Structures are given as C-alpha cells and as structure tokens.
C-alpha cells in the first residue's frame, strides 16, 4: 500500500509548486512536513511564553487552568526517554508513560516522525542551521566517525544510571534541554521586558552551565546540519530502536537512475550508498 505524503516530481512545475519553491527546496518537496513542523514549533512557543506566563490575574491557579487547553508539559510528556528514565529510577508508573506510548504508536506509521515533524528542538536546529551554520563550511567533519552511534551510548548511560537511582536524562534528552535553555536564556528577557528587570532572580553557576550546554547543542550544527539530531540525541535513539517495529518505510522503485542525490541530501544520513534503500533506524520520513 502506497502512502502518498509528498508532492510528486513535476517536469514543469505548476503555480503552487513555483510559489513553494520561493520558500525553499524543502518546502517545495515536502510542504506538509514543514507545515507540521511550523505548527508544532508555534504550539511550543505558545505553551512556553503564553500559557506558562503566570501573570494577568491574582487568582493564579484558576488563570493557569483556564489557559491550559492542552497541558503545558505536553512536549515533555511525549518525549519517551523522559518518562522511561524516571519510571526506571523511581520504580513507579508515571502518567507521561501513557503519552510516550501514544507517540511511539504514531511512530509505527511514521517511523521517527517525531524527529522530523514534531520535535521543537529539531525545528529550532533547522532554523539555526538554515540561518547560520550553513554559511560556514570550515568546521565540517566527515560522516563516518565514531560519533555516529553516540546517541545509543548516551541512551545506555542514561538508563543504567536511572537503574542506580540517579537521573541524568535531564542533561541530554531533547525537550528538557530545550525547555531549560529557553527558561534560562529567554525567560529572563520576557520577564524583564514585560514586568521589570528588578524582578529577574540572580543567576548562579548552574545557570551558565545549562546555557553553555544549550548553546553547544545548537553550535554542533557547524559540524554537520542537525548534528545533534543525527548523532547525539537520546530521544531519537529510542525512536530509532522502535523503528524495528515500523509499519511503513521508504522504498526504491525500479525506475531509479542512481543519481546519488538522495543519499547526499538526506539530513539524517539514512540512505545507503549501495542500493539507496533506508538505514531503517535513521529515516524520519521527512
């Protein structure tokens, strides 16, 4: 059964295609994906800057409850290593395990769709790569180093330490890193601007350490676009492992002319150079 998600190739592009091309090549080839990414990123920004902004009423409890159409922690809840590591560490059921289960079920049909479509850190990295790191080529490194399996080693370290009762997932898992980065960098600006700079609490060394980690995640894009997403992020290590149970995948038809473009352009290094089929653990169906 074919799953036609993407716009087919046209020798003479029509008006819609020409307009999409002005936005960019990825918008022209898979506009649905870029649209979903934009929407999810916008939802994350609204949840963080609007819903979680506690001011506006002195009845704080009711004010927050009224704004929370979806839970403010939604993105954190759908991040599987968050709920898995805390469930292992605390030896108990946490309710976000149900959310993680739901997103994994969705990713049966869209393997690693979280990484390509939903993850706001991925969208931020895409924005950063498009605006900044694409323009500097001198730091590029090759694709076949030891680091390409780093995400599995990190995930193992996180789970083993959770087994010992120490939670390290907050340091390296995608959505906590993103939320904390926004909280320590952008939240003070929002508070100072909208309410007053005297209300911003002082920062300690821990703040700067977290900011440095967040910047490091973004700056990895100078090595390769989406370096974090491809090689380091433990969240997509979980999804990559879950790809073993996928229900769909990208298939190569017999009309392939072996031009190599797909293998070179793939943002997740998921296409084998020999026969252009997928490295199934890596494809995000972008």
């Amino acid at each position, binding site marked *: 059964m074919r799953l036609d998600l993407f716009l087919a190739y046209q020798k003479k592009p029509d008006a819609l295609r020409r307009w999409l091309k002005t936005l960019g090549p990825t918008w022209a080839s898979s506009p649905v994906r870029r649209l979903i990414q934009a929407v999810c990123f916008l939802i994350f920004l609204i949840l963080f800057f609007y819903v979680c902004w506690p001011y506006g009423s002195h009845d704080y409890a009711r004010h927050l409850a009224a704004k929370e159409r979806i839970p403010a922690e939604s993105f954190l809840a759908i991040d599987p290593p968050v709920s898995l590591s805390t469930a292992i560490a605390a030896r108990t059921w946490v309710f976000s395990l149900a959310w993680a289960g739901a997103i994994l079920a969705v990713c049966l049909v869209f393997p690693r769709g979280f990484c390509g479509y939903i993850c706001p850190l991925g969208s931020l990295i895409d924005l950063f790569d498009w605006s900044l790191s694409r323009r500097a080529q001198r730091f590029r490194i090759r694709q076949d180093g030891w680091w390409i399996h780093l995400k599995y080693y990190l995930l193992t370290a996180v789970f*083993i330490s959770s087994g*010992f009762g120490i939670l390290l997932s907050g340091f390296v898992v995608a959505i906590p890193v993103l939320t904390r980065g926004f909280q320590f960098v952008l939240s003070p600006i929002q508070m100072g601007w909208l309410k007053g700079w005297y209300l911003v609490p002082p920062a300690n060394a821990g703040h700067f350490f977290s900011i440095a980690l967040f910047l490091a995640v973004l700056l990895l894009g100078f090595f390769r676009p989406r370096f974090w997403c491809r090689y380091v992020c433990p969240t997509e290590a979980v999804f990559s492992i879950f790809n073993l149970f996928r229900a769909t995948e990208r298939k190569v038809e017999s009309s392939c002319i072996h031009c190599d473009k797909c293998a070179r352009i793939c943002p997740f290094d998921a296409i084998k*150079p020999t026969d252009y089929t997928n490295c199934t653990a890596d494809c995000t169906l972008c």
Partner: protein
Amino acid sequence: MALKLPSNAPPVVPFSRRKLIAGAIGGGVLAEGIRFSSSSSVAIVRPPGSVHEDDFLRLCIRCGECFKVCPNNVLQPAGFDKGFNNLWTPQVIANWSGCEPSCNNCGQVYPTAAIRPLPIEEKRVARMGLAIVNEQTCLPHARRETCQMCVDECNAAGYNAIEFRRIGVRLDENANTIETSGFFAPVVLSDKCVGCGLCQTRCHMINVKQKHLLGRTAIEIFAGEGRENRLRSGSYVALRQRRQSERLKIKPPQTQSGDGYLPDFLK
C-alpha cells in the same frame, strides 16, 4: 542498464560494542559518584506538594517548567553548591519571595508528578517547611524596636500562623505589669505554618536590605524531619485534621469543679 556514478554518500560505520559497554559502565560509575558526592547537609526547601526527597530526585527531570510558571519566582534552580544531584532542581528561595497562597501552578506542569498536582485547598495546607524565629536577632525579641511585619504578612496571606507574645514586660513597685512596657514579639504556630516564606521575604527585604538593621533575616524557613509533609498520595487536608485531632487528645481533660486549681486545704 543503470549508470554507476562514483558515490559521495556516507559509508556505513559499524556499531561498536566496546563503546556501548563503556557507555553503560560510565553511566553506572557516574551515578554512584554523584550519589556519594552530593549529600546536602541542610535540607532543601522544596515546592509545596513535592514527594519525598528520594523520589523527588528520581522524578524531577530538571526541565525548568516550574520556574517558568512560578509567579513570584520563589522557585529557583539549585546551583552546584547543593551537590551535583540537586543541580537545576527547584528550591524555595524565601529571601527572594514567598509562595503565593492562591497559586498551585508548579504542580500543574509536572510531567512526572515529582510535585503532585494539588487542588488549591490542599496546597494551602501542604507544609513545605517551618518558619523559625531567631530570638537573638529578631528586633522585638532582642528588645531593639517594635516590628510586626511577619505577623502582618502571614495574616494578610490568610494563614494566621504567627501570633504575638508580650516579652520584656516591666513591673511597677506593686508588682503590677506596666501596660505600655515590653514588646510584642512573634511566635510561630507550628501546626498552622506551611513554610510559605512570605514572612522571611518581608524581614529580609525591609530589615536587611532596606533598613540595614540586620545582617540576616530573623525568621527563616527550614525543611527537614518534622517540619514538612510530603505525601506520595492522599489528602493534605485530611492529614491536617488528623494531626489536630491527635493534638486535642493529648491535652489533659478539663476538671469539672471550678476550683480545681486550689490546693487541697483551701478547697
């Protein structure tokens, strides 16, 4: 027949079992090292509705959401001074601000329920810590000047957990108390205090920062055994009612006769 062009696509790197085992061992060693190195000697004051400290450290993912939704910025991330295991976990900094009585935001945004989502009535009786007055430095206790800011703040918040006690009362030549003498000094009612920290904020901001009368706040919130309640499940309101009824049982029963206070030969 397809044309085979030279390929620029990436070669496949094999998965390294050695690095995987290194990752596993590294995770274990790091965990044990962190556990041994971080033991905070002073109990950290945690947000209201937090679960027990061991579970808290295993459920808190250090994401930062609770800092964002806290309207007074009472909750601030602990730094390296509290140990690596407490890094970025929320602690109550009562010198900065006190916990708002009409707010239960922090529990609402927790993906792993390290802080339980409590309804507002429950949150108002969930003890985070206990306010302890330093009777050496507190201005009325030290007979320096009158001050009742902590009492006012606590009453304004609706907790009514600090009372006045008259101290330093002088007697005249007939051993009668001079009504205008002495100071009204604060006394914390430990069964009503929830450790919100509003009193500490006031004392710190005015007496220390503004008037420079003190070097350190005279009323401070302390956590630890006996000063806080951390329920994994169940109602804080029911817990408070249980504690109050137990306290009533311990009180000696009232004597029936009105002269029970007299010694036997005068009855």
